[in-house]
């Protein structure tokens, strides 16, 4: 896993940097954390069904120690947001995230959780990273169980790269920010801008004259 390359690898390290013992301790702690990441399945829609399929026998999440789905955030390590999140649901998502104790990570599963997906409309959050911090994004609509497992393995790599000496920065959480959006307002407006086919959503199709009045404002995102 490349652990020995990440931290200082020589047993006789300079003082002030990682030593043999701290890297070994890192390895043990990270092994324990990745070996039994208890997921908090925040499943809302179709991706939740794929998450359930990943937990079932064919794609078995139990081999990663993740079969114990913790529906109580207090006992969970990993929030898997599987499915589209409406603005009505956003405070619930934020609250669940805030209720999870550190160390905690999050996976945004699916296109809707990552960016709003097909739903560039009035009621959908355009990416949950506007609401909670996200560690791994798994694209797909829905991602195959293998995709979700790949995302989990990427998270394992990310966790394995963490070190205890960085814990203060990594696990920092400002209690004042509880319940508030994860990104500042200008950034939310930027990331939520329509892209791709979303920019071409207009009521009137370009070539066909419909009886309804043309609304030029519709053509603009």
């Amino acid at each position, binding site marked *: 896993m490349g652990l020995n390359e990440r931290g200082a690898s020589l047993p006789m390290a300079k003082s002030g940097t990682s030593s043999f013992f701290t890297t070994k301790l890192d390895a043990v702690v990270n092994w324990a954390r990745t070996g039994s990441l208890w997921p908090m399945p925040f499943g809302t829609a179709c991706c939740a069904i794929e998450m359930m*399929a990943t937990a079932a*026998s*064919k794609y078995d999440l139990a081999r990663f120690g993740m079969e114990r789905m913790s529906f109580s955030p207090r006992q969970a390590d990993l929030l898997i947001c599987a499915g*589209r999140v*409406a603005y009505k649901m956003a405070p619930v998502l934020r609250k669940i995230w805030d209720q999870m104790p550190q160390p905690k990570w999050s996976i945004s599963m699916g296109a809707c959780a990552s960016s709003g997906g097909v*739903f560039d409309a009035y009621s959908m959050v355009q990416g949950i990273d506007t609401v909670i911090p996200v560690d791994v994004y798994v694209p797909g609509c829905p991602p195959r169980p293998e995709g979700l497992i790949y995302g989990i393995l990427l998270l394992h790599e990310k966790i394995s790269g963490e070190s205890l000496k960085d814990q203060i920065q990594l696990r920092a959480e400002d209690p004042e920010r509880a319940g508030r959006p994860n990104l500042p307002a200008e950034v939310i407006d930027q990331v939520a801008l329509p892209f791709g086919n979303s920019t071409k959503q207009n009521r*009137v*199709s370009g070539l066909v004259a419909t009886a309804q009045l043309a609304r030029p404002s519709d053509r603009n995102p």
Partner: protein
Amino acid sequence: MSTRTTEYLVTRSPELGPDGRAVRMPVLPAGMDPELRGEHMLINIGPQHPATHGVLRLVLELDGETVIKCTPHIGYLHSSFEKLGEYRTWNQIIPLTDRMDYLAPLIYNCAFAMAVEKLMGIEVTERCRIVRVICMELDRVFSHLLWLGTTAIDIGAFTVFLYTFQERERIYDLHEQFTGARITTSATRIGGMMADLPVGWTDALRTFLETFPRTLDEVETLLTNNQIWIGRNRDIGVISAENAVNHGLTGANLRASGVSFDVRKDRPYYDYETYDFDVPVGEHGDCYDRYLVRMDEMRQSLRILDQALRRLPGGPINVQDPRLILPGKTDCMADMESMIHHFKVVMEGVPAPPGESWFGIESSKGELGMYVVSDGGSKPVRWRVRGPSFINLSALPAMVEGSLLSDVIAVNASLDIVLGEIDR
């Protein structure tokens, strides 16, 4: 220490009063002065909860363990499908339909295509009709399997979840072979299907039909005569036939109460009247009857699938009309007219004549209605989905008020709701 028992006057099957509305009797300990009310608790279940089957929020007023009032709150998954539909051409809406009832996507694909074809006055080919019947029945089994697994797991029977998900994986394979996707199939198009059945698909389906009944029997052995299952489900969540019809319940929920209304029999479409199948009808209107009705529905769907496979003809799967169906790629490259048709169908979309159509089919959850209104363009003026779960869930308070807290979970599971179609 003495034990104290309290008797409750609990009404499980409220009658209709003279004004046609349900008469609810107060839930009080027997012999207690109604003025003397104990303190009630307000409990919030969801919207993030393992047993709500999605993002459903129930606010319960409890007196001890007894539910006095139940208020479902929905809208936590409202994805503005109907508004989005107004900005999409008819074929572009089909991927949206997958994501509403994600447990039976082929049924929604077919329902929408059928509604729009009715609006446009298009008759699909014989092969397409039978393939769509196969798709709809297969997804009925698919959806009931998930219902079975999640209901069992809510009540505590974890093994059944694993068995049913294993069978669902086989259906996922069938979906994937046909459409390329496991859940979000988008299999239909206006005038036909996205593609014809691949070689070997009917054999794979036949193998499934042969092996699946064994699993169903195993699950029945685990559940049907299991005293715990019976105790958790019998006489729970009872709703009378008149109440069920008045609340608009459809599907297995209505049939378990004794009303024999199945859209496939009463308003048949796609030659359903020529298929030999029965519609199971219960009599008590409780959770156990809903369970039995759905188990039998799965077996009946297998019968229909068998007959449909036998009568599947050859021939084209799509209507041979270049205004509707994309011409083949080689034709487009060789022939100017085909190129132009391809361009028009993709860029403009297929225009529908001005008009409207409300088309209801029997989905796995009840009567699914698709209402499409067109003004002559290639995009709808209004696309309305009458999701059966929306109406089924509105009957939940009538079914649980007066029951215990744990019964709320059992009744909620037995209603077979999917929040995607409730919140749309």
